[in-house]
């Protein structure tokens, strides 16, 4: 559907480097990454709104690398809606029809979409009198009205109130299912990515870090950046040999298979089991430590555990913390299930001291 081959964009202060992504037909693809990672630039290059330095963009089998935006059949929806303020709702939605051959069926299809999304009653209203949720619905229908090959969504939910956000998420799911259109959505919201996305990619400083099914992005990160980005708080350099990862502070048994060139391990704080007394002596991957700090994060607590002069971060619920009377200086045992441990390939950008090393290494 969309094939991006070795795409490079060189701007004065930023560059996209060697991006390779293949988005399948009818797929809902999510593009994740921190602010300034190049997500919007990538989307605008697919839409033909940013000139590319090198590489190829193929849409529906046609080389569109240098095609003007109006020839690409690519709809775009921005977070700030970008509705035409001097037109009514209906004029906005029908704007693109002037440039596409259309028949009564198309008008009926648009009418149906407007009815399903509840904006039919707003047809003759001016844009400035509408709510954020209504504006985003109109922007979506406007993009779909011209039957695009793909709809590019640039953080479409980020400027909406939480109530509207859920509505639009459901609407996106429904539109994707009913229209069969391919969607590419930029987001930095994990919940949105999980709810809507089938596959996804993570960008960092113009570099594609990982491209895989969305659940794999969150459960099996392949680089330290992805691990950190999706919430792995414990990342350690390790010597890995025969299913054993040896860090400077502890040893853990890790699950096979072990890929070549891996030199780091990571695990989530919420996957760690915490015990006040030593668990069964047969339990593998048991570490002894002392609680050094507790931070209240609202729905959960973050505990920093000093294990052999390095910190391991653990997340737990308030009830678990209170029931076990965990407090600073308390001595505890951590069990890290080996299925929760992931290996990561070498990465020069990784900075180990983001996780404080207490010396004695």
């Amino acid at each position, binding site marked *: 559907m969309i094939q991006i081959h070795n795409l490079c964009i060189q701007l004065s202060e930023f560059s996209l480097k060697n991006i390779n992504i293949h988005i399948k037909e009818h797929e809902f693809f999510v593009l994740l990454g921190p602010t300034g990672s190049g997500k919007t630039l990538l989307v605008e290059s697919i839409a033909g709104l940013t000139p590319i330095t090198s590489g190829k963009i193929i849409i529906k089998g046609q080389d569109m690398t240098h095609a003007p935006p109006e020839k690409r059949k690519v709809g775009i929806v921005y977070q700030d809606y970008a509705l035409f303020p001097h037109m009514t709702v209906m004029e906005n939605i029908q*704007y693109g029809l002037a440039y596409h051959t259309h028949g009564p069926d198309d008008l009926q299809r648009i009418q149906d979409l407007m009815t399903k999304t509840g904006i039919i009653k707003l047809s003759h209203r001016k844009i400035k009198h509408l709510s954020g949720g209504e504006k985003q619905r109109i922007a979506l229908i406007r993009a779909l009205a011209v039957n695009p090959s793909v709809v590019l969504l640039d953080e479409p939910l980020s400027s909406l109130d939480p109530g509207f956000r859920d509505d639009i998420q459901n609407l996106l799911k429904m539109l994707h299912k009913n229209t069969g259109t391919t969607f590419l959505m930029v987001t930095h919201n994990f919940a949105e990515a999980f709810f809507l996305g089938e596959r996804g990619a993570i960008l960092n400083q113009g570099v594609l870090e990982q491209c895989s099914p969305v659940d794999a992005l969150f459960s099996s990160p392949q680089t330290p950046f992805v691990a950190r980005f999706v919430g792995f708080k414990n990342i350690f350099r390790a010597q890995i040999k025969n299913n054993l990862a040896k860090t400077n502070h502890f040893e853990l048994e890790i699950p096979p298979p072990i890929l070549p060139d891996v030199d780091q391990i990571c695990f989530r704080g919420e996957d760690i089991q915490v015990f006040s007394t030593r668990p069964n002596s047969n339990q593998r991957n048991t570490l002894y430590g002392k609680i050094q700090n507790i931070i209240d994060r609202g729905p959960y607590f973050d505990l920093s555990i000093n294990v052999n002069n390095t910190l391991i971060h653990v997340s737990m619920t308030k009830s678990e913390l209170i029931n076990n009377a965990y407090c600073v200086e308390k001595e505890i045992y951590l069990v890290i299930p080996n299925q929760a441990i992931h290996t990561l390939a070498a990465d020069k950008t990784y900075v180990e001291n983001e996780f404080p090393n207490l010396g004695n290494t």
Partner: protein
Amino acid sequence: MKRYYDPFMMISIISCVSVLLFILIPLIQMLLAPSWEMITESIRDPDIQRAIGLSLYTSGMAALIAFIIGTPFAYLLARKTFFGKRVVEGIIDLPIVIPHPVIGIAILGIVGKQHWLGAFLHSMGVRLMGTISGIVIVLTFVGMPFYINTVKNGFEAIPVRLEHVSRSLGASFRSTFFRITLPLAFRSIIVGFIMCFARAISEFGAVVVVAYHPMTAPVLIYERFTAYGLKYSQPIAVLLILVSLMLFVALRLISKKDMNI
């Protein structure tokens, strides 16, 4: 409890009143000075009618030329970044900072037969010295920066994403400009037109060098002042202000559309 007045706010209010008085007192004095008989007599004076008519015509032409040439240029400045853009913007502002008679002399320098451009224009039968065309050229020169800067700001205020969406919906660059950008910049274009027109209608220094005759209203005011004194120049000035004011109000009313970009 005693109401507290911030000293800085008091200074601001005093400065505001001072500036308003500074502007309004001489203008009000001038408006009230001529008797009704003098005003009506001036309205009937064919020289005054011709001069005001010529000022309106030449200023309108200058604003029209600024609109035709300046609008695409303003769009380019608003939307594109290119090497030397700052220099280009500086050149646009030059006519604002150069003394007005200098502008007249500069234009005279290139329309004479000694200059290749002047020689070319002569060969084409175009005369600028002492002609209406010459006045229009001078007024376009002085008014253009006001038009371009105003319209450029107007284009900049239109989110480029509106144009992106339009293109993605199938509209060409030209269609996008005429269906999206231009309607949204309409207000700025009218304001730019007014600014250019206002600047042009008030021009004296450059016009008097290039074309003392035919007389525009400012030149006639100057001539009546030097020949007959203040009393005989004031009615023309009052008429010029009233006519211009009516025109500006009309244009403002046309442009009063709330686009809410």
